[in-house]
Structures are given as C-alpha cells and as structure tokens.
C-alpha cells in the first residue's frame, strides 16, 4: 500500500512540473493560435538564470523565484516582439519554424557559455520525512505547493480580472478586440511574458528538484509538456493541467506495473488513444465555424 502511495506522490510531483510548462504552451496558443516551441528553452533559461543569480548573491527562494520570473518573462516578451510579431500574418509553418529556430538559438547561446552541466545549489535546508514507509521531502512539498499556487493564481487571473477577460476576448476574436480600442499588441506581449515566466518558474523548481542544470534540459521535457497541453485540449488552461497530471501518472503507473523499458511506449500509446476519441483534447472544443 505505501508503495502505491509513494508512487502517487511521485506522479503528483512529475505532473505538477509538466503542468507549469504546459500552461505556458496553452496560454500562448490560446491567444495567438501559435505553438511556441522555444518554450522548453525558456524553461531551461529559467534554471540557468537562477543558477547565475545564486552564484552572484545567494537569495532566498521566493525572491529568486520572483526575479527569475520577471527577467525570463521580459525575455519572452522580447522574443515575441523581435521574432514572432513580424511574421504574425505569415503562414503557420513559418511561425513554427521560427519558434524552433529561436529555441535552438537560445540553447546554443547557453551551450556556448556553459557546455558543462552545472550543479544547482540548494536554496533551503531540505529535510526528509518518513512515515509508514512513505518518504516525502520538504523540497517536494514546496515544489508541489508553489506549482499549485501559480496554477491557481493564473486561473483566478484569467477568470476574474479585467486583464484576464481581455486575454480571453483576444483568444476569441483578435480583430474585434482591436476595433474596440484595446491595445492588442500590448496584451499579446504580456501573455507571452506570462507564459515565459511560468516556464521559468517551472525551470527553477525543476532545477531545485533535480539539481543538474544543462543547456539541453528543456528539450525532452518541453516536448512532454507540449503533448500534455495537446491531450488536455490546447488553449484551455485547466485542460493543460489535466493533461499534465494524466501524462505524469501514466508514466509513473506504467513503470509501477510493467518493466520500465515500456514506459514511453505505454504512456504515448495511451495518449494517442485519447486523441482518437477526443481529437481536440479532453477539455478542448472544436472551433466554431465563423461565417
């Protein structure tokens, strides 16, 4: 029994990190209908920025988190301004290629500056609790806690504030929103910054949990989070979270029940099956026909 509970804790931890990254994908897609494949690399930059910050001045976790989110958020907005806005009306393929290219550029800049994997310092005293054969560390609790907090804050912002309403309106009809006198470009920049900041927060938390930081750390996990966002219904925030937890628990479950060699095979086959029955994702809705 405690073996199963331990695995559930593992699944929640994995799912909450996937979720934070998947939110960024979904947020940007919701507003621009564009997949920002550089998101995994913003995640990596979040980890690197925090590492750099801690090397210069050791800051407490909350301050480091805020600073990292702020700086990488600005970087995300800059990326949108320089790379994505000029091609907003170009074919979708160009946008995809641009975002892949931006991701590679960010990755290789980091690689050129730091080819070696680095060790991430711990930002607080980690203690481990054992009860009835179950192990949980204070780090795990903090990571899951911060992830859930950020997710709830985002959800409240999107649903209950004017800014959230504007973002939802933009996702619905960009032209109409502009006609009503709302500075659409500024809102889009803000959304990008928000997505990047969430990605950076995930990068920081990830680096704390798995304290080896390298320039390629964002690739695999970026793809997984993207898949989670699609499964949940891309463009839908709650869907992204649902997809992330489904992906995390499928991975852990397939290891628990079968040899771990089959993990990815089982996890992704199941996800394909979900897509066959729900082609727009679990919470996604088919686009309404506009006349």
């Amino acid at each position, binding site marked *: 029994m405690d073996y199963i509970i331990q695995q559930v804790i593992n699944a929640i931890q*994995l799912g909450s990190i996937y979720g934070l990254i998947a939110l960024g994908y979904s947020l940007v897609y919701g507003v621009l209908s564009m997949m920002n494949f550089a998101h995994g690399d913003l995640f990596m930059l979040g980890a690197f920025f925090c590492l750099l910050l801690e090397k210069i001045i050791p800051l407490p976790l909350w301050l480091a988190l805020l600073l990292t989110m702020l700086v990488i958020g600005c970087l995300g907005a800059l990326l949108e301004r320089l790379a994505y806005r000029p091609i907003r009306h170009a074919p979708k393929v160009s946008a995809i290629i641009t975002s892949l290219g931006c991701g590679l550029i960010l990755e290789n800049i980091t690689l050129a500056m730091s*080819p070696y*994997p680095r060790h991430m310092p711990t930002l607080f005293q980690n203690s481990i609790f054992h009860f009835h054969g179950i*192990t949980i560390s204070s780090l795990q609790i903090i990571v899951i806690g911060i992830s859930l907090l950020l997710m709830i804050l985002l959800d409240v912002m999107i649903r209950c504030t004017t800014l959230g309403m504007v973002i939802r309106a933009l996702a619905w009809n960009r032209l109409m929103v502009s006609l009503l006198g709302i500075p659409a470009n500024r809102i889009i920049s803000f959304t990008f910054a928000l997505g990047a900041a969430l990605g950076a927060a995930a990068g920081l938390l990830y680096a704390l949990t798995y304290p080896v930081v390298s320039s*390629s750390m964002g690739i695999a996990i970026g793809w997984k989070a993207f898949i989670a966002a699609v499964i949940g219904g891309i463009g839908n925030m709650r869907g992204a979270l649902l997809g992330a937890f489904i992906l995390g628990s499928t991975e852990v479950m397939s290891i628990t029940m079968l040899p771990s060699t089959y993990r990815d095979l089982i996890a992704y086959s199941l996800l394909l099956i979900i897509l066959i029955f729900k082609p727009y994702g679990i919470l996604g809705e088919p686009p309404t026909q506009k006349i």
Partner: protein
Amino acid sequence: MSKQQKQIVYFLFFSILLLVGCRSSNQSIKIGLNTELTGEAPAVGASCVKAATLFVNKMNQDGGVDVGGKKKPIELIIADNGSKADEAVVVAQRLITQNEVVAIVGPNISSCAVPASEISENMGCLMISPWSTNIHTTTKNDGAFKKYVFRACFTELVEIPLLAQFAMSHLHLAKAAVLYDMSSESPNSAAHQFQESFLKAGGKIVAMETYTSQDRDFSAQLTKIQASHPDILFIPAYYNDVPLIAEQARNLGITAQFLGYNSWSTPEIIQLDSHHYLDHAYFSNHFSTESDSPLVKKFIQSYQSTYGTAPDDIAALTYDTMGLIVESIIKAGSLNRTAIANMMANIEDFTGVTGTYKFHQGNHDPFKNVIVLTIENEKFVYVTTLQPE
C-alpha cells in the same frame, strides 16, 4: 583586364593552390580528433583535446616523428561531434576527405564511435577510439574485426565480468538491482553484461529498471527498486545522471551499495555530487593517478603543470592512443593509411600510461587490466587491480 593580365592572375591563383597543396601533403602528419566538445559529454571531449595537444606539443618539441628517415611534425585537427551519432559520422567523413588525415582519434562515447567506425572502415583510414567499450565499435555484424578500427581501452566483455566478480567475492554482496539508461549504447550493454556475469558468479538480480537519456526524475523506478531490497545498486549511466540517481535513491531510503563502471570516471561527477551521496561507491576504471610507474608519474606531472588539473582516464587513454598511432607510423615508415593500419594490428607490446597493450591474433581490442576505484573526500581513491584470466 587584358589577356596577359588575366593569365598572370590565373598563374598566381594556381601557384597559390599548388603551394597550399604542397604544404599540407609534405610537411606535417595530420591526425584528426573526432571528439565530444559539446552535447551530453563535454568533459570527455575536453580531456581528450588536452591530452592529445599535450602529446603533440611534446612530440613536436622533440623534432617530430621519424617517417622513413625524415622528421615530420604532427598537426592535430580538432573537430566537435556534439556527442551526436550523425555529427560524428559527418566529422569522420570531413576529416578523411577534406582534411586528409592519416588517422583519427575518437569518438569516445560508443553511440558516436560505432557509426563513425563504419566511415573509417569504408574509406580505409585508421581510427582508434580511446574510450568506447562497445563491442560493435571494432567488430562487424558477423563478429570479424574491422580492418581499420581499434580501441585503446578494454571492452565491457573484460570489464563487467571482473566487476561482477569483485562485487560477489570482495564486497560479499549477492542481491543486485540495476538502473540504466536504455537509450545509450554503452550503459545498455554494460547493464546486460552485468546481469549475465552476476548471475553466472552466483548472485541474484532483483530488479532491472531503465530510463531514457534526458530523464531527470527516477523516483518511480527507484521506488520500485526499493521494494525489491537490493544490496547493490549498479548504475551504468553517464556521469551527469549518476549524482541525480544517487541523491534520489538515498532520499527514498535506499541503502544499497552503489556500483558503477568506467563512465563514472570524470571529476565532474564529484562536482555535481556536492552532497556526497556517492561517497564509498565503487566503480571499475581504466586508469588511476596513484601509480608508481615513472612513465605515469611523468605524464601526470606534465599534464598537471600544463592544465592545473590531474588527468582523468580519458586523458590517459587519449595519450596512449596518440602513442599507438605514432608507434604505427614509425614502424610503417610512410604516411600510407593502409600501411599504418597494418602496423597497428601487429603491435605486441606497447607500454602506455594505462598499462601494457597487446593486440594479438588479429584482435583489435587490447588485453589489459581493470582498476577499481572508490570516491572518498571528493577524490577517486585506488582500491584494487583486477587481472583478466
């Protein structure tokens, strides 16, 4: 431009081409370095370049290499393969056709060395991998050795059975779990070799779990391993994964003895393991800096004074690889690629910094001893030397 002027321009252009051609073909011995400067194993590439450069500088200071009675300097051409199989192939092709090297050192990691070896074999250029222990690096699918491909290290066939025996008879631990990177060739074959040898030595394998490269979360696999209560956790993985696995294992309450193999042997592993989860872990290796041999002492001293750090096993093996190539060139007395490869196959005893090399009976894998090290106080400490039977 008049016709005469044009002719002069053409003449100058071609004479420059000719001069450039002469310089490269006559004056130096070109040796290519196909190595992992970026990607998943940059520390490997860095050590490889350092040792090769040290060797070349030393040889060139002594006047160069004697090729058929004429002293020629060595020119080292360094190329990065990004730790990727496809890039390793491209680099091998470029070194052979464009740079016209007489021999190639590397790649080091097996996933790059295996595909690159096919290029060297097909194009007929000597390739020696300092560090790749995978069987397929030097052998074809039918089991015969590739004519142009060698290695400077022992293989997993020598190393892992000795390590399994060490665990059984020296550590007296008989229940082993294995967690390995199944998407990388070397860890994968090491894991299976260990399973086979450990069972043969009388031990029991209680768990065989896998992950794929780039994974950082091993908690699900480790929770499963913990439920099987092993005495040993064998972790064949690249050095940047090992500290993460060790930390997560200890945090989950796994108390098993950690065991590793030669992929662990880079000082980076100690740097990444800042909380000392790997203390007292044992691993098998090619080289130890705690040797009495004057040759080794001299090598360590010159390496240390040049780079400020002690050489790791990749540096030592690269140094021996360069030595083997130069030995073959001297014996061949020419820069003919086939002649050099033929001489290489006949080296009976070459003493390098990692031990004495013997390539006998057409074998392209050297017959060498295995060293066991442990990690203590942020240092690799010598434990014992295992002799192959």
